[in-house]
């Protein structure tokens, strides 16, 4: 590994999803093990645990099942993040649980992912969970889906079984908005086609899972067109050296800002020009998403947290009523009369649901127009009215300025996530 370019190496974030016992944890364990990302002391720990369970092989799934409760239950219960690197790329895995009641964790893991790994048990074929996971991946706009048809060793590495499952999946996926779907026959337990090519499936001409992960084009998630700079905080040192310094600190959520650019502040509509851009004490000529910087303006205009610095000819939409797709995360059902706290970028406002347009049955992709009751794991289309205007973009244009979270005023829990249609 060339040390000097390590920090510039591409980073791929991917989620893994599968039903209970699809062998998801084993697959991650296999990726880590075969790419030599496992340390000796971790391996010793896992060897010890495997022996205690009376197994005759090393149970690779124990590498990723993090917490005590789930080690006892034998299933993953929360989002766990794993890190590894190969000489080509760095990876962050969001390992999310497969069973029905934890859809919220899937959505959480998917919100920042470039790719989704979907596991299908070759003996069972496409099941309801497969539909759910694929729908969520498309709803959250994960650009790439890799379908791993696992446990091929248990169906004698049969090509026809693989082809049937692929056909079944493609029929369903044609109804989704997914740009790129790939299929790989694997055995996570035995290692076939994970990191090393399988000697048992000559009929498969594609590349291994690892090769796919290393080469998928990370069609940059960032929007480099629409300039958006939500202000987090105002920096005023009040020191002798920087007596009149007034910097706006935040993270660029879209587009490019250059020194001298004409800018417009929402909601005031005041205009000015970019005077300086700082990253720490380094002065920059330009900055782009997703950099965190401090910007100073030529004119002393009023800008505060929650404002968005943008450009005259390319402004976000100002909205008091939002059309949203929402995933509900809480045991407590949605209260159609209730007020909720809405967090969008650096703004916090109050919001009230106007109506449930439809509820999505994500195993059939049917819209349910009758049942308006919203509970845990429901995904629905809605209209939301907010107390102050928000400055938004559609989610498909910008995942940051197009997303929001919904918080219960009483419990302070995050109860739902919304994507602007």
């Amino acid at each position, binding site marked *: *590994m060339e*040390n000097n370019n*390590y*920090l510039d190496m591409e980073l791929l974030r991917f989620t893994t999803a599968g039903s209970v016992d699809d062998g998801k944890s084993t697959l991650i364990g296999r990726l880590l093990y075969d790419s030599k990302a496992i*340390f*000796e*002391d*971790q391996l010793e*720990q896992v060897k010890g*645990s495997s022996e205690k369970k009376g197994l005759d092989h090393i149970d690779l799934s124990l590498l990723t099942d*993090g*917490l*005590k*409760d789930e080690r006892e239950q034998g299933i993953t*219960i*929360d*989002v*766990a*993040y*794993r*890190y590894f*690197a190969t000489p080509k790329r*760095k990876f*962050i895995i969001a390992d999310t649980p497969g069973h029905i009641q934890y859809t919220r964790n899937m*959505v*959480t893991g998917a919100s*920042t992912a470039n790719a989704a790994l979907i596991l299908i048990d070759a003996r069972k074929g496409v099941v309801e969970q497969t539909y759910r996971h694929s729908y969520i991946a498309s709803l959250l706009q994960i650009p790439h889906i890799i379908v791993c048809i696992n446990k091929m060793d248990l169906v004698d590495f049969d090509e026809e079984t693989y082809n049937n499952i692929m056909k079944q999946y493609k029929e369903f996926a044609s109804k989704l908005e997914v740009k790129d779907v790939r299929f790989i026959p694997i055995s996570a337990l035995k290692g076939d086609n994970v990191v090393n090519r399988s000697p048992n499936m000559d009929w498969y001409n594609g590349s291994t899972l690892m090769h796919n992960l290393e080469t998928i084009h990370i069609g940059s998630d960032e929007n480099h067109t629409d300039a958006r700079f939500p202000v*987090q*905080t105002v*920096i*005023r*040192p*009040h*020191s002798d*050296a*920087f007596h009149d310094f007034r*910097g706006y*600190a*935040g*993270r660029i959520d879209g587009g490019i800002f250059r020194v001298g650019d004409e800018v417009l502040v929402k909601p005031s509509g005041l205009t000015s020009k970019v005077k300086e851009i700082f*990253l*720490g*004490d380094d002065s920059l000529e330009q900055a782009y998403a997703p950099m*965190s910087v*401090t910007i100073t303006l030529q004119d002393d205009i009023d800008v505060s*947290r929650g404002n968005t610095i943008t450009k005259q000819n390319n402004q976000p939409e100002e909205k008091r009523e939002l059309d949203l797709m929402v995933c509900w995360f809480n045991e407590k059902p949605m209260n159609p009369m209730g007020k909720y*706290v809405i*967090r*969008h970028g*650096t703004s916090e406002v109050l919001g009230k649901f106007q109506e449930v347009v439809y509820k999505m049955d994500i195993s059939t992709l049917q819209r349910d127009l009758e049942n308006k009751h919203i509970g845990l794991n429901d995904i629905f289309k809605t209209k939301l009215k907010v107390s102050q205007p928000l400055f938004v973009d559609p989610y498909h244009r910008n*995942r*940051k300025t197009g*997303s*929001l*979270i919904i*918080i219960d005023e009483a419990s*302070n*829990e*995050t109860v739902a*996530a919304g994507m602007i249609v």
Partner: protein
Amino acid sequence: MIREVFAQFQNPAILFSGGKDSIVLTHLAKKAFWPAKIPFPLVHIDTGHNFPETIEFRDQLVEKLGVKLVVGSVQESIDKRRVQEETGINASRNALQTTTLLDTIENYQFDAAMGGARRDEEKARAKERFFSHRDDFGEWNPKNQRPELWSLFNGRKNMGEHFRVFPISNWTEMDVWQYILSENIELPSLYFAHEREVFWRNGTWISTGPYIQLKPSDQPVVKQIRYRTCGDMPITGAVESEADTLEKIIQEVASTRTTERGSRADDKRSETAMEDRKKQGYF
């Protein structure tokens, strides 16, 4: 994220251990608010068993940055009988820190404590959130964590509750070292190879010193060693190393085959040692 903490909370602080991760975190905070000073204090939980090099480094850094330092003393907690000192050959003050930390947070009414913990360090930390909610007893409930989507963080809380925030959660050990190199960040001398009197215990080299009891069978020897983490003297194991520059350390990290916490005796007490301590309010 550090700015987000400053904006969302009334009284945040950085938990500063003197280790490289909290040094990097402090460096990031400096950059986030430049040219202003870091607008909140550094909190150090002093077990009284720290390496003198750590304390010296801490004091120099605080002076250079012009920030406030708050020290929570484990010795004081022991004197006040808030906690009881462990005895025996493997005695350590590591577990006692939790009480001192929670007391310090309560006394100063910090509502957000930022730490340099990373998810790649240990299994229980792999599931930690960036904004981690603690109830008014300071306890962590891994099953009741708030979902975190995109980069929207929910820091709303009730009176008496606080948050632990981990801005460099997603960094790996390699990321930290590479960043230290590229930003030219100063570190305590402990991280670089040096000669020290050590003895072999529980699979690692432990420094001799005033806080550790030697068994008659322990054979102290002088070795060329360095530390990969900076904890208390009695529990932090050193590795034999020739790496006396950042570049050499990075090469060593790239080729190493054990995790950095692998030489921490506190994690070896049981397989879920970290998770159990976290539930009680440890970092």
